[in-house]
């Protein structure tokens, strides 16, 4: 899609170095404490790092999908909870860029690149992949609007200043920007998520939340599937790259362990059954990288295939991340079977990646439908 500028993206080398420093060896402790330092998130947000693809004209870094993706993979290799925060912030920014009017784009994208954190609400108690069952609704009331409903498993909600809420509006749908502090908003953290434990997942109730009409992106009245697909496409790209990072972390941890740990007089890597695991990890890393690069190229060239390429990348990367994590835990055995260890986190985090932003099965349905109509 249009970048709105002639800005040429370059690899985010400094940003990556900063992230490496900030995360350091804290990921394990954050995972066990189930919380990320809020001041770190605000700092990264203020630097535009959490949504790196926001064009420079809106105050962002203007990164290409590829460069943003590589940064996302790097963070994914360190800490999937922090990567999840990037995914949420990025989805929010992308949706605002697509669906907001001129004023909303400048205002909210400015907020999201100056330290405000965003979370995006899709799922509801009775509506996961079944959009038709969605019940959260925004209604006009004079000069303002009123939001009622609830959202489940909203990633990053615990840290968020702004909540982007997908909801019904008359016969159509809309994204509404809601300050997390607005009266009538009740945020209840999910007590102990299986994976991405520090990502601040929460369930949110909206009870008669009064908002200015300008909170509805583009005035609303858009197509629900189009809102959903557009927002999710960014999320799928982000998760695909993040899962590539998980695979890279697993490859590194397993290879290092197999190189130094000796059994029966030789390193584990010289035992053929272990060696086959390393080969599988290497193949997964290469495959995930290529499928993500392909999707990012589709995205950058504004190819109509970008929607399917994002689904395909997400499906491949999430599956390989889950398998690679399982393999890496197997190779590290007791050394990795400790909660908080990089491969143990990968094991839990990657399973969640097979569920969110379109479960494995939903992605398969989309890909099958694509085959049926195009092959």
């Amino acid at each position, binding site marked *: 899609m249009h970048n709105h500028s002639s800005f040429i993206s370059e690899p985010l080398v400094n940003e990556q170095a900063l992230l490496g420093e900030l995360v350091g060896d804290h990921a394990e402790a954050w995972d066990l404490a189930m919380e990320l330092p809020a001041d770190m998130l605000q700092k990264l947000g203020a630097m535009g790092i959490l949504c790196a693809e926001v064009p420079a004209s809106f105050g962002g870094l203007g990164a290409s999908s590829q460069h943003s993706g590589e940064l996302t993979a790097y963070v994914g290799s360190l800490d999937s909870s922090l990567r999840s925060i990037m995914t949420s912030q990025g989805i929010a920014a992308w949706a605002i860029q697509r669906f907001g*009017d001129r004023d909303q784009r400048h205002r909210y994208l400015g907020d999201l690149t100056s330290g405000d954190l965003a979370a995006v609400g899709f799922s509801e108690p009775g509506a996961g992949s079944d959009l038709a069952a969605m019940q959260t609704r925004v209604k006009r009331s004079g000069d303002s609007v009123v939001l009622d409903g609830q959202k489940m498993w909203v990633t990053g909600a615990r840290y968020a200043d702004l909540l982007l809420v997908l909801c019904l509006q008359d016969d159509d749908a809309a994204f509404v920007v809601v300050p997390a502090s607005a009266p009538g908003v009740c945020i209840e953290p999910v007590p102990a998520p299986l994976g991405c434990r520090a990502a601040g997942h929460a369930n949110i109730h909206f009870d008669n939340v009064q908002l200015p009409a300008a909170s509805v*992106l583009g005035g609303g009245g858009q*197509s629900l*599937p189009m809102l959903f*697909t557009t927002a999710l496409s960014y999320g799928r790209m982000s998760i695909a790259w993040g899962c590539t990072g998980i695979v890279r972390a697993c490859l590194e941890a397993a290879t290092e362990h197999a190189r130094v740990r000796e059994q029966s007089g030789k390193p584990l890597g010289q035992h053929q059954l272990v060696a086959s695991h390393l080969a599988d990890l290497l193949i997964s890393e290469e495959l995930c990288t290529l499928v993500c690069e392909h999707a990012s190229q589709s995205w950058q060239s504004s190819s*109509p295939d*970008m*929607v399917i390429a994002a689904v395909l990348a997400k499906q491949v990367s999430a599956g390989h991340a889950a398998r690679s994590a399982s393999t890496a835990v197997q190779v590290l055995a007791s050394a990795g079977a400790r909660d908080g260890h990089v491969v143990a986190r990968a094991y839990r985090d990657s399973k969640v990646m097979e569920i969110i932003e379109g479960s494995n099965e939903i992605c398969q349905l989309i890909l099958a439908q694509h085959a049926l*109509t195009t092959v």
Partner: protein
Amino acid sequence: MSIAQIIAPVTTDSVEEALLEFLTERVKADVEADQDLFASGLVSSMFAMQLVVHLEESYDIAIVGQELKLDHFRTVQAMTALVLRLRRASGVTTDA
């Protein structure tokens, strides 16, 4: 980002013709200009997003905000009207 696809003047006829060609190739079926693409099951609502990307890239327009209604993508005729209207609104010269 190039807009190399634009070689012909952008008129109702040229846009319709190009879109029919694009769709026919994509969905492997004959498409009529007034055919409801979604109701006929020819394309999924997910494909609408692909249409958005295709139109933006082919005709140097930005389809954002309230323009993103499914009705604007329901038929080739509706998409053609959208393209011409957005090009006029953004001051892109209609070389007809």
